[in-house]
């Protein structure tokens, strides 16, 4: 189906199901329960899941296939955002031209950065990309202020009057898709649950599915095989009549365009951009996402992006009051002791939890979360006896590569 083999098609369908039903899946706890804290089914976070999923899928095409570790990919995300933002300010508030512009601008920038950086490999390549990204960040912050808005970044203002819109004097434009507001939501209350279906999320999700589908096609193509050959043995490649440079450059530009798409979508969702989007920590984050989920696997980067964004937004919101609520059943002295122990790992300390999880994954599961899923699956299939339905179901629900 769709030019995919059975296994890949099934994976695509699973991802399709998960993204379309995300408002339900991410909201498992009724809003009155203490666990409602862990619900992630609100539009802003769901949008981030899929947008950073796109970013990580693209990064994985470069890092997972060719092994070239770019440490400056956030630059393409940022450049794509600025491109999309200007398209909205000047041309149309429709998100489609903005997103296309984001992809094009990031692609052109990636050609330039890749052409220079890919002259070196290994750590030198990483440092070159990092240098480019930090230069972009510094330029956006200072010299390029007329274009980037400097520290305050760019927003849509009441003075903006895009070419293809008929805004009333002083009206602040809103991002839309042929008239449909990105912030439009349909809320469904079922008992104690409130499910939110957000237009922006579904548009981003459709882009994510297309990106994911294209990534599968690239992975399974002769081109994808050549990229893995680059990672495996460049010497053999050159002595087999193949020029590795254009292959790596093509992979670099494709992944840069994925980042530009993610950047454009970010702007489409919240119509603002600032230089911090290009800061090196943002580049590091996508590296973490890809490795945490499983570099070189199809679904890994999406899982990694989800896991990190979930922790960033959920773990960081837990504060001392919530901990007191949770541990209220304990005797006073013990309660305080437990809270003192747990406190550094939540709220602003969520990075500590992320760091520990990341270390554990790298040491014990070098293949990332995907490898974890495969191990669980193997565990169950080994224990499985004929006719044992429960084990069968459990193994099916683990993520397949």
């Amino acid at each position, binding site marked *: 189906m769709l030019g995919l083999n059975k296994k890949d098609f099934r994976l695509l369908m699973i991802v399709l199901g998960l993204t379309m039903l995300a408002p339900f899946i991410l909201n498992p706890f009724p809003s009155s329960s203490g666990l409602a804290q862990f619900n992630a089914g609100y539009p802003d976070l769901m949008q981030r899941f899929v947008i950073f999923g796109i970013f990580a899928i693209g990064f994985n095409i470069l890092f997972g296939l060719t092994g070239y570790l770019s440490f400056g990919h956030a630059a393409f995300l940022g450049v794509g955002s600025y491109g999309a933002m200007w398209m909205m300010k000047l041309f149309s508030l429709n998100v489609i031209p903005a997103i296309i512009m984001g992809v094009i601008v990031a692609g052109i920038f990636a050609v330039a950065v890749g052409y220079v950086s890919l002259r070196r490999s290994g750590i030198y390549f990483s440092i070159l990309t990092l240098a480019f990204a930090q230069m972009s960040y510094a330029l956006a912050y200072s010299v390029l202020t007329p274009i980037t808005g400097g520290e305050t970044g760019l927003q849509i203002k009441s003075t903006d009057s895009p070419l293809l819109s008929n805004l009333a004097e002083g009206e602040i434009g809103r991002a839309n898709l042929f008239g449909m507001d990105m912030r439009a939501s349909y809320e469904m209350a079922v008992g104690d649950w409130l499910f939110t279906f957000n237009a922006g999320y579904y548009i981003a999700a459709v882009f994510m599915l297309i990106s994911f589908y294209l990534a599968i096609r*690239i992975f399974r*193509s002769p081109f994808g095989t050549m990229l893995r050959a680059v990672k495996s043995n460049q010497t*053999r490649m050159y*002595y087999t009549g193949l*020029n590795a440079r254009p292959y790596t450059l093509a992979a670099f530009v494709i992944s840069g365009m994925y980042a530009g798409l993610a950047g454009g979508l970010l702007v489409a969702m919240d119509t603002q951009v600032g230089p911090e989007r290009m800061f090196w920590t943002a580049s590091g984050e996508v590296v973490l996402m890809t490795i945490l989920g499983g570099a070189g696997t199809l679904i890994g980067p999406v899982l990694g992006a989800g896991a990190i964004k979930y922790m960033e937004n959920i773990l960081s919101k837990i504060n001392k009051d919530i901990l007191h609520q949770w541990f209220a059943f304990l005797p006073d002295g013990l309660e305080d002791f437990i809270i003192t122990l747990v406190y550094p790992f939540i709220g602003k300390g969520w990075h500590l939890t992320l760091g520990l999880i990341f270390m554990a994954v790298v040491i014990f599961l070098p293949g990332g979360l995907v490898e974890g899923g495969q191990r669980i699956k193997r565990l169950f299939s080994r224990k499985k006896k004929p006719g044992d339905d429960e084990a069968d179901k459990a193994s099916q629900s683990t993520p397949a590569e």
Partner: protein
Amino acid sequence: MGILEVKDVNKRFGGLQALGDVNLSVEDQSVHAIIGPNGAGKSTLLNVLVGKLIPDTGSVMFDGQSVLGRKPYEINQMGISRVFQTPEIFGDLTVMENMMIPIFAKRDGAFRMHAIESMAKEKAIIEQATEMLENLNLADDRDMHAAAMSRGNKRRLEIGMCLAQEPRLLLLDEPTAGMARADTNATIDLLKQIKDERDITIAIIEHDMHVVFSLAERITVLAQGTPLVEDTPDNIKGHPKVREAYLGESA
């Protein structure tokens, strides 16, 4: 005129004259061995032939065209394939993928952006690669990671990958170095079979005299970067200068 003509090639590394006035002519469709003691310049010469090193002076012509200044992949596309001392294969890829890549390189050239087509739909290439693997007795390992194969099988695969490109000249750099006798003999048999079945020229650098004398039709002896003699195996065996420089008195 041979298919490969090396004329007056010199190469210095600092104070070391690695190659001095090397002249070499390899007959079309012959097996030509280059032997010599350690440090005689065999590897340097090979690296010049494949474009990894550029000589200070001299010319290298392959089939009437100069190879100097061309990149390794361009020289490969001209019809020169190289087998390395330690097998260079794509260890992370399956044996089948290893075999398909050179066939892609032959069909599509140095770069082609076939990013949306499916590997599984390349029927002609799959068929050709399967046939190659069957000829090499590697068909059972087709889905194995190439890195997991035995040393001897890696060597077979590498030679097979080079042959899949249908080169005019096959360069082998000590193809049996570090191999057990059984693997060495298997490699000799494979090379003999290749020589009989194909219109191909083979140039081989080798330490193992057993390999050299079982395969070569012509032998060039290098010593201190300069060809000492070039002759048939029988004459080389008895040549006093060669005994002195290389084989040692006892040989």
